[in-house]
């Protein structure tokens, strides 16, 4: 959610930003003063200008402390000790460098600006106004005292004054404009939360629709297709089971583990795919199983569950729409995936022409497979049967395989 900082955090973030920016200005000014002082020393090696460099290093160290921990103590220390170091620096250079004639020469301005750029304490206006003002006054006092003591002219420093003005305007300006523009922030964050909830609801609705399709709609279709008379025991069982699972079961809980997964009695028998084949056989479909059914061992539980439901739906489609009573299921693995082919020799169809309200392929097969990273291909034409290829990723070293996969080379 990068739709902006919440109102209560913005002042602190902006405050931290201004403090860091101030310290960068101070560092650049101290660096500039350092370079120029070194130049003065190299021009006149007989003069003892170098002690001034220690004052600059001291200020640099104090600045590093304020940058690391900005609180009342460190800020006060920077201002007071910094003021003393500026006095020391000024006393040295005003005596040793003849071309520096007054208290507002460039190199001294840089030190004063560095003192002004101490950064705010806290997030209130007063905390951002007082430290720079104190820095300005202390800096001016330090250079003026040093100039007076060394017989140089005392001059008001316009650069330091303008730097102070800049810090004050930025400090006050950011606190003033804030409230008005931030007023909308809560509603924007609320909208983001609403969006998250809406997405969850949409997922829940889609799951509910798939569940409804797999159970109630297919039950209703089975009832509609039956002839008046005694209810078949298979259908009665199915209706009973679905009533419990739809109305009696809490959907927010993980789907109840299917009974067929309870024990790893055999790799194939334990899989959801086997259960789907078994259920379809119960409907009266004669299914020939071939290939390498044991390859389902390489599937994670989630993928196996989804595959079982999808293939179950495909077999129901064969039962309901193909006009055939036989189907072939071929299972084979290779290249990191497991493929299941469901083939019938029935009526066939043109996928582009089927009714919009035929959800089986869309909801129960395609969307389920897409959700686990699988894909579905359909070959069919009216009159020439239907072949559906479902491919899912097979992770042999899955975290949660159906059954432990033998490593092969046990010592």
């Amino acid at each position, binding site marked *: 959610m990068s739709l902006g900082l919440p109102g209560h955090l913005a002042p602190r973030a902006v405050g931290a930003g201004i403090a860091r920016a101030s310290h960068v200005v101070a560092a650049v000014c101290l660096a500039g003063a350092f370079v120029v002082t070194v130049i003065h020393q190299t021009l006149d090696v007989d003069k003892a200008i170098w002690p001034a460099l220690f004052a600059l290093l001291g200020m640099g160290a104090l600045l590093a402390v304020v940058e690391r921990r900005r609180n009342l103590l460190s800020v006060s220390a920077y201002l007071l000790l910094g003021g003393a170091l500026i006095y020391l620096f000024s006393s040295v250079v005003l005596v040793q460098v003849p071309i520096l004639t007054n208290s507002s020469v460039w190199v001294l301005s840089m030190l004063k600006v560095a003192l002004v750029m101490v950064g705010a304490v806290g997030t209130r206006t007063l905390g951002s106004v007082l430290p720079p003002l104190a820095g300005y006054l202390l800096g001016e006092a330090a250079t003026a005292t040093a100039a007076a003591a060394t017989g140089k002219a005392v001059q008001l420093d316009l650069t330091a004054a303008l730097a102070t003005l800049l810090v004050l305007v930025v400090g006050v300006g950011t606190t003033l404009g804030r409230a008005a523009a931030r007023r909308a922030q809560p509603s924007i964050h609320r909208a983001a939360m609403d969006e998250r909830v809406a997405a969850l609801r949409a997922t829940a609705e889609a799951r509910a629709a798939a569940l409804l399709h797999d159970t109630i709609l297919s039950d209703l279709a089975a009832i509609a297709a*039956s002839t008046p008379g005694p209810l078949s025991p298979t259908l009665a069982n199915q209706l009973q089971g679905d009533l419990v699972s739809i109305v009696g079961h809490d959907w927010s809980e993980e789907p109840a583990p299917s009974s067929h997964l309870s024990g790893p009695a055999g790799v194939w028998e334990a899989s959801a795919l086997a259960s789907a084949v078994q259920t379809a056989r119960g409907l009266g479909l004669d299914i020939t199983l071939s290939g390498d059914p044991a390859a389902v061992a390489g599937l994670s539980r989630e993928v196996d569950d989804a595959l079982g439901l999808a293939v179950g739906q495909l077999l129901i489609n064969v039962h309901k729409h193909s006009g055939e009573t036989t189907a072939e299921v071929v299972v084979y693995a290779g290249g990191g995936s497991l493929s299941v082919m469901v083939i019938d020799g029935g009526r066939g169809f043109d996928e582009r022409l089927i009714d919009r309200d035929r959800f089986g392929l869309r909801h129960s097969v395609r969307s389920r497979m897409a959700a686990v990273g699988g894909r579905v291909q359909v070959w069919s034409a009216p009159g020439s049967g239907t072949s559906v290829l479902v491919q899912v990723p097979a992770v042999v070293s899955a975290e949660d395989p159906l059954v432990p996969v033998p490593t092969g080379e046990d010592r």
Partner: protein
Amino acid sequence: MTAREPTLQSLDPLGALAGRPLTALAGIAAITLAVVLTVGYGRQIGSPVVAALAILVCAAACGALVWYSSPRRAPFRRRAAVLVTLAAVAASVLSTVASWGQNSLVRDDWGPVAIGLLLLALSPYRPPLEIQTLALVSAAAVAITTLAESPFFSGDVPPVTFVVVAATPILALALAGSAFSRTVIARIARWRARAETASVAQALNMQGGITRSVQQGRVSLLNRDVVPLFSGLVERSIVTLEDIERATAVSDAIRALMVAETERTWLDELILHPPSGTEAAVWPSVVSDPSHSADAMAFEQRAAVRALVGALGQRLAARNVSVRVTGTRRATFELSCSTDVGESHLNAVLAPYLAVLRAVFSDLSVAFARPSLTLRFCYDCQ
């Protein structure tokens, strides 16, 4: 939508909006400084015409800064930043030319300070790295002119001293600006990571409730039609003709409902359901999105649209809201509605929402001729 640049304006649109007056103030300060120092050091100026031209170019740079940083023109693009910087450097060079041979003190030149101020003012709108690059390039340009001018300066020091004096304001102010945005961007990233986790956790906490309420909706439907049919059948163990007819009818009804659900997108849900606090009766609306392009919006884009629709309903009492989404690869989203509020109130209310929309969509345009308000923006479908 092109990838979002790591700028404060794009990551914290409302923060940039709040800082806009400071941007204008920086421009005014740069012009004032140029005028005051030019007039104050008039005796050092050899060519008043060039000096005046320098001030004009500086004013143009400031004008461009204020123009491009307007929330209406967001986001602030790189070419605009380069233009502002080039103009500022040109103004600085012109001011050097104006006092060529007669300038005695480099620290009194307004050029480097004006460049520094403008780069500082650019920092909320451009990535920190770009500000640093522009600072280095401008400092190099100023260093060259300063070196060329150094024989005329007073003071018996090596020319590099003048270069340090001239480059310091540019580097100090521009690097401060980039440090500011870098710090705030880092804070935003830190907050975002934490907020994201918290909000996902909160949403997941709600998931149980959401699923149950979805179930409640479906089950109450099933309780009415399906449960009596099924339990009657199981109890009697006999299928009658009436059961078969009822099963067909109920199945058709459920299918019709599912078709309607499949055709709907989140946008329909958003627009068709009146936001809380509004009268359902004054919220008849239409969504036209034949290719379901609304589904291609990213999370932040959806959230921004959601916030906008909420504000339209709750703060502007908008009615007759209609939405049209066209295009498949690059979609155009057009929202029209009617509102009776005045233009100034409308602008004040919408400004923050538009700032957020501009950060996540491109080509936002707003047209208001009371009472009709139309917003249009584009995005790339993922």
